[in-house]
């Protein structure tokens, strides 16, 4: 005799503590087992791409800040690189170095939020605050440089809005020596905690071919064991000058590509970013950061696709110029948007509690998904 059971439709969000913003997930559950997940997006849609068409090229930069608000520096980075390439601007060395340093610091800060909130999703509150305490130090460095703590508008086409503060080099070095031991602290407190490993190992396994088929990039792809990082594979700016590794998931406590691997790859990436900053900070040449900024930003007719390795994956800007002051079209390939598509595939057959773990490990930012 079989008992007839009914599937329950559970709405998670848009006001829910673990959907990382205003994401609504429609779960079809049988008991506590999830049969289907349908993400509903658009609650944070602000028409970035349409807005960009009405703005001049520099005016678009603040809008890029507001996409992935945890990695604003990197959003600026990709956009200005694209416009510079379109115009054929050669950027001074000093600017290049400062951009890389800012970008990598931003990557650390962004991963801190990802790891901290992931701990929160699993139920550990304290690592979250420890990581935010350390993130505060990076934000102070940014604040010292450009006055803003979240949305910087720092990288301009051809240069930077401000030169670095005289104390910046010293304080950044201090931060590196301060933060290195804290990575170990996070590992002790969270990464190798038995309960944490039980919650995340072998959960939401993403095989590498599925990941490639879905177009997953960034730490999520690398956690599946595929060594692909645009900083190495398609070097932009001056990344080819630095010595750093690309950590990939190895399935240390479970299967390659599970939630734990996605978490741990981010931990290892913070280490590598520290390494890059450490190398770059000693080599900053003298110079003027605004000398190459053109008086009129009016790229010639043409198209460009510029991609950079954002903390969340491949951030691509497709810019069409019609030769006027405004871009004809700015299309963004948002890594969070693409990465989130895998959610249903990963979640089927898992428990409701695992949905939170899987969603957290994909590390989405709703500002970027909805734009």
């Amino acid at each position, binding site marked *: 005799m079989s008992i007839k059971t009914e599937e*329950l439709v*559970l709405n998670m969000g848009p006001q*829910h*503590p*673990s959907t990382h913003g205003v994401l609504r997930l429609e779960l079809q559950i049988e008991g*506590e087992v999830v049969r289907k997940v349908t993400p509903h997006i658009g609650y944070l849609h602000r028409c970035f791409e349409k807005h960009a068409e009405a703005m001049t090229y520099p005016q678009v930069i603040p809008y890029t800040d507001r996409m992935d608000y945890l990695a604003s520096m990197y959003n600026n980075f990709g956009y200005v690189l694209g416009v510079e390439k379109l115009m054929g601007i050669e950027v001074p060395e000093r600017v290049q170095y400062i951009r890389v340093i800012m970008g990598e610091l931003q990557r650390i800060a962004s991963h801190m939020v990802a790891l901290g909130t992931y*701990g*929160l*999703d*699993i*139920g*550990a*509150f*304290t690592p979250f*605050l*420890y990581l935010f*305490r350390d993130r505060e130090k990076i934000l102070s460095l940014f604040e010292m440089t450009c006055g803003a703590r979240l949305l910087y508008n720092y990288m301009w086409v051809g240069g930077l809005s401000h030169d670095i503060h005289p104390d910046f080099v010293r304080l950044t070095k201090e931060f590196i020596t301060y933060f290195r031991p804290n990575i170990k602290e996070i590992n002790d*407190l*969270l990464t190798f*905690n038995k*309960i*944490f490993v*039980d*919650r995340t190992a072998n959960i939401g396994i993403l095989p590498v071919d599925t990941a490639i088929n879905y177009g997953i990039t960034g730490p999520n792809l690398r956690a599946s064991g595929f060594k692909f990082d645009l900083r190495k594979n398609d070097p932009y700016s001056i990344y080819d000058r630095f010595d750093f590794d690309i950590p990939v998931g190895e399935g240390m406590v479970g299967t390659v590509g599970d939630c734990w691997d996605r978490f741990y790859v981010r931990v290892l990436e913070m280490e590598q970013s520290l390494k890059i900053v450490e190398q770059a900070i000693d080599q900053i040449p003298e110079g003027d950061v605004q000398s190459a900024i053109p008086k009129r930003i009016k790229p010639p007719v043409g198209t460009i696709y510029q991609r950079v390795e954002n903390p969340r994956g491949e951030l691509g800007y497709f810019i069409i110029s019609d030769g006027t002051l405004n871009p004809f079209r700015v299309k963004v390939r948002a890594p969070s948007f693409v990465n989130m598509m895998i959610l249903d595939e990963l979640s089927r057959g898992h*428990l*409701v*509690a*695992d*949905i*939170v773990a899987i969603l957290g490990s994909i590390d989405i930012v709703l500002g970027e998904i909805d734009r």
Partner: protein
Amino acid sequence: MHQLLEEIFGSELIAIIIASSLPLIFITVLVIFAVLLERKVAGHMQDRLGPMRVGYHGILQTIADFFKLIQKEDIVADTTDKRFFNLAPVLVFAGSYAAYAALPFSSAYIGSRIDLGLFYIVAISSLVVAGILMAGWSSNNKYSLLGAMRSAAQIVSYEIPTVLVILSMVMISANFTVDGKGTLSLMEISEIQTSSFWNWFVLGGAGFSLSKFLLLPFTMAAFLIFLISSLAEVNRTPFDMPEAESELVAGYHTEYSGMKFAMFFLAEYANMFAVSAIAAAIFFGGYQSPIGYLGNSLGIEWLVPIEQFFWFSVKGVFFVFVQMWLRWTLPRVRVDQLMTICWKYLIPYAFVNLTIIGIISLI
């Protein structure tokens, strides 16, 4: 205590009412203190200060919060089952309050001297499950329902290892009673572990016999099992599944607000202290001082019960602190892992432990 009150007021009824409301006063004071302690502990563990604004170092914060809660509008959704919705918080609180009746606060005060004290506590705290299920079902909210289901399954499962451990301790107590039978009265169990911490059950019981040293590792294990399952019974991290805020928003009390929410809150903290007090009573000598009494050495007789009350509170609050400590350190286990821990590990271990303790006690 009863007699003293009866002499003062000259009426048995008034004496009974006052005596039975003493735990209520205790709970209120305790919760005000424990909530502040929780926030301060959390704050200092997380590199911050916790509440600092209301009163000196925020000591009046809980009282301010309490006034905020009673001022709040009591929102009841249209689709709830009103009768059960209103009854649930009362039932949950009643369950945890009733457990206090059999807790020996000191040699002079216990709510009710029933011989089956431990049995009574285990039984009466099951009222909490009924209340939680009622809250989850009547809220007519999917999150509440899931939370309530989890909670009921969890509390019922973890009662088994708890009871097995209690049983093994009762067996040990048989070694020390006059008639050679075990006792279920917490008062008597506390009395056995008198005079020094050496006599605590967690260290194998009173005296210096061989059996004490044989029992010692197993009583320690029993205490660990009790600690783990008591965490699960009061829904604290790492077993705070029913309220898992990152999954189920707030579990079974998602729909509650104002005073009704405060009742759940009160019951949670009252429960925390209740299980801590039971742990203290059956493993750590209950109200007995580990180092002797000031009242005895000074010759002031009435000071002894007060000291006993002090030791009882200190031990209870210490275990409450342990629960908070764990909460702010550990992540949360998943609901199926929770059941695995209980049925595959704790219950078999508790059974083995019970058998070994039984055999050693017989010898």
